[in-house]
């Protein structure tokens, strides 16, 4: 990551550019709805729930996704919450399609990023990263699809697990007890997701490092690697998990609320949130780098 800050910025820029058209659409929608009215000043200085209920129900499906709870760390919490209960798959198709474009772009870039993190690899340059990535893309895409199948199985498992848990706890009158049971179940599900994520990561890394051509065999390789080094693999993951939590904690403390009311403060607030996204992206790449190094040492 430190060797190629431009890489992190390029991925961030791609993320920004892909999101921009929809954001402009929403911007114009808010502007056309509000520009002439007294709410214009109200929205500049803060927020108004009366305006929000009107806007939400009088515009289209995309604008319905707009919510004041997306302020600050709320955006991340809202996304995670929607992934947790599967509502993300009920999102507006245009949002899912936009996300799919970014995912494909990420998979294109990922191969080049992993190649650039190999021991002895030259300082990465963007054209090289892209060229390498395109070469690896078909295999990484197949691994991603297989991983998606794994996530689907976990999703179905949660749809079985939590209702069963609910039935088992239906006569418990203590929220604390019910929460505890749910936390244990959630921790198990998170462990499953984490393991699947790690298998997928090491499968992709094996494609890069060992030049594997078969996605299935790569997944098997990844599974074997994780099974052979469970605690070290999880240890690395936990380390980055903790750093991520610290990042979110810091962001929750400094994240802009609704008080940005001048062009300068609005731009600063937007900029600060972009810095958070860049930091998230950088952390992800740093984690991948650690995984590559770990695989090269212990693989």
């Amino acid at each position, binding site marked *: 990551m430190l060797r190629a800050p431009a890489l992190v910025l390029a991925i961030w820029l791609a993320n920004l550019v*892909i*999101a921009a058209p*929809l*954001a*402009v659409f929403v*911007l*114009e929608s*808010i*502007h056309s*709805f*509000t520009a*002439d*009215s007294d*709410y*214009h000043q109200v*929205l500049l200085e803060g927020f108004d*729930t*009366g305006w929000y*209920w*009107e806007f939400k129900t*009088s515009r289209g499906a995309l604008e319905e996704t707009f919510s004041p*709870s*997306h302020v600050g*760390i*709320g*955006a991340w*919490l*809202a*996304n*995670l919450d929607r992934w947790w*209960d*599967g509502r993300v798959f009920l999102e507006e198709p245009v949002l899912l399609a*936009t*996300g799919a474009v*970014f*995912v494909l772009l*990420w998979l294109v870039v990922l191969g080049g990023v992993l190649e650039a993190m190999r021991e002895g690899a030259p300082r990465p340059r963007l054209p090289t990263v892209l060229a390498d990535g395109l070469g690896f893309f078909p295999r990484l895409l197949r691994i*991603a699809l297989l991983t*998606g199948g794994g*996530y689907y199985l976990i999703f179905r498992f*949660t*749809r079985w697990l*939590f*209702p069963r848990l609910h039935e088992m706890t*239906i*006569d*418990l*009158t*203590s*929220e604390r007890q*019910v929460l505890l049971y*749910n936390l244990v*179940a959630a921790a198990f599900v998170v462990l499953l997701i984490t393991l699947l994520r790690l298998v997928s990561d090491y499968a992709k890394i094996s494609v890069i490092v060992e030049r594997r051509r078969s996605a299935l065999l790569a997944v098997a390789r990844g599974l074997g690697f994780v099974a052979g080094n469970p605690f070290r693999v999880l240890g690395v993951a936990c380390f980055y998990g903790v750093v991520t939590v610290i990042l979110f904690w810091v962001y929750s403390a400094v994240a802009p*609320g*609704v008080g940005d009311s001048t062009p300068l403060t*609005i731009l600063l607030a*937007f900029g600060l*949130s972009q810095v958070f*996204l860049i930091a*998230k992206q950088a952390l992800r790449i740093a984690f991948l780098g650690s995984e590559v190094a770990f695989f090269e040492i212990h693989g």
Partner: protein
Amino acid sequence: MPELQRKNDLAIAVLTLVAAAQWLAERPVRAVDLSPRNANYTISVSLDPETKLLEGRQVVLWRNIQDAATGELRFHLYWNAWRNDQSTWLREDRYRGRSDRGEEVEAGDWSYCEVDSIHLLDAAGGSGTDLTPTMRFVAPDDGNQADRTVFKVDLPEPVEPGESVEVELVWRAKVPRTFARTGFRGDYFFLAQWFPKLAVFENGRWNANQFHAATEFYSDYGVYDVEMTVPEGWVLGATGREVERRQNEDGTVTHRYQQDDVHAFTWTTSPDYVEFEDRFEEPGLPGVELRLLMQPEHVKQKDRHFEATKAALRFYGGWFGAYPYDHVTVVDPAYGSGAGGMEYPTLFTAGTRLFNPFGGGRPEGVTIHEMGHQFWYGVVGNNEFDYAWIDEGLNSFSDARVYDQTFGDSYWTERYFAPPGIEQKHGFFVKLFGDIPKPRAIDGNGFARYREMAVSDVPTRPTWRYHPKTASGISYSKSAIWLHTLERTLGWETLRRIMSTFYERWRFRHPTDEDFFAIASEVAGQDLEWFFDEVVREAHTFDYGVQSVSSAEIAPRGYFERDGSLELEDESSETDDAKRDAKRYESQVVVRRYGSGVFPVRIRAKFEDGTETYREWDGRYRWKRFDYETSSRLVSATVDPERVLLLDLNYTNNSKALESGSRWPAFKWAGKWMIWLQDLMHTMAFFA
């Protein structure tokens, strides 16, 4: 000495008067019956927590206070609403698409209330006529023969006006796993509408609606004397005060509670309750003893419950009239019991969760609301089948006001990470957004819910005939909003007097909506029929807006008569600088009534020099144009700038500026939305 004696006598007289005043102030309000007491119950019931069965015996003493005789009695058996899925209640619950329970009904969840026998007691109180063979279920509302929530029995002789009858019922009931906030969860039992309840005989007939999914209850006032037997060690709370407690040989305990002048009796029991006591004291209002039954994990929130209850007693008492009883029980229901947020005479359930932050509205909001129902529902006993808005609307309006006065705005909260795959479960973790207020006028009154259901039904239609999906939006939110509109129209003090007069005249009686409307006009000193015609007697939409604004400099050109001769007026020919610089503007504002409802409104015009001009419009025709000739250009116009008409569905179109504002507000909020979208994409890529 005589002088000293007189002074001593005077001092003693003054002290005696002060002491008497103090004693009177601390005494309950009444010294006589508060209500007609025409439906009196003596009930004995035992609960078996293992089998979830109640076995009961009750004697009902009913006095005919109407002008007509009746040859029958009608009773409600509310718990038969969940006897099977063919009941009217469950059919309507399915239809409204928002299940009361959010989970499948299992075998042990159903309930029933079976009357094994009913006897007409003779004058000596002995078993007289067996009425059991005459029992018939009736379905006066929808003809649903499968519905068992109302039955009637025929009397051997009619009960004439002023006469009384006494009947004894032996019955048994199966406690449901909570429906409509009554039932059990684990060892927690909350028992409402649990016994055969006499309907109301009025206007020459029995008013005995079936139990509907979107309505509540209606019954007469009386005296309740109830013995409840539960396992030893179980804490019990009920309507009224405990007057006796007996230890039984079988390891059970019988609690006897009594309460005068109420129209229902509810009780709850659990081995887990933690009990707290406090007292409400306020100058000018009678003291009230507060009993709080809390779940162990919520005891840190006990002060929040007490504070909210006292706020309701203080403000409702000061605004409308004193709470007439000297005690109230506040119940914190068990997690997942579904029994929260409901009112019963002298007892109510609040409802809270772990980690509920202060400022999010709970438990304070629901506590104030349910305590408020002691006034609107408990004391003013409207028929909730027909006029649910009277208690729900008046109370929603009132509780929002109390919350606002006591705590200010509440704030936007979100709950995250609910167990997947389970309907209607809210997340365990909560975040309060402290810079997004939810003001009383909008969220306190339930504006979002009103907006969704604004014209679904005419509010004055009997509530049980509303569309099941929208009853709450009309009864609660629309009613609260039009009351708030009335407050802004008449002023708070006038509305307060209307409500206090309604409270005072209809205490322990059964008002209709027309009774409220009549009092409103009387107290306001003006005919308010136009208001109620528009707002309540029809299902109108209200939407006023500024259609267009324009402002142009007046620059007359051409020949004009001046001092008897023709002069050419042209800017280029004007030689006087003062005249040339004294600009005049001709501005026009067109306002339009987009909705079907009519309401008088004000129009405010703002000008560049900071001046503001107000005009009145009766709001009747579809549009009106206002012309202004001023020395300053028009900047913007707003219809209803004070937002008197809170019923206006689209306030955004109420104002229009001559020039559109910048994109910065839109950029600000679209930017935040964009961050969310970018993060969503990040997360998708993380899983890829």
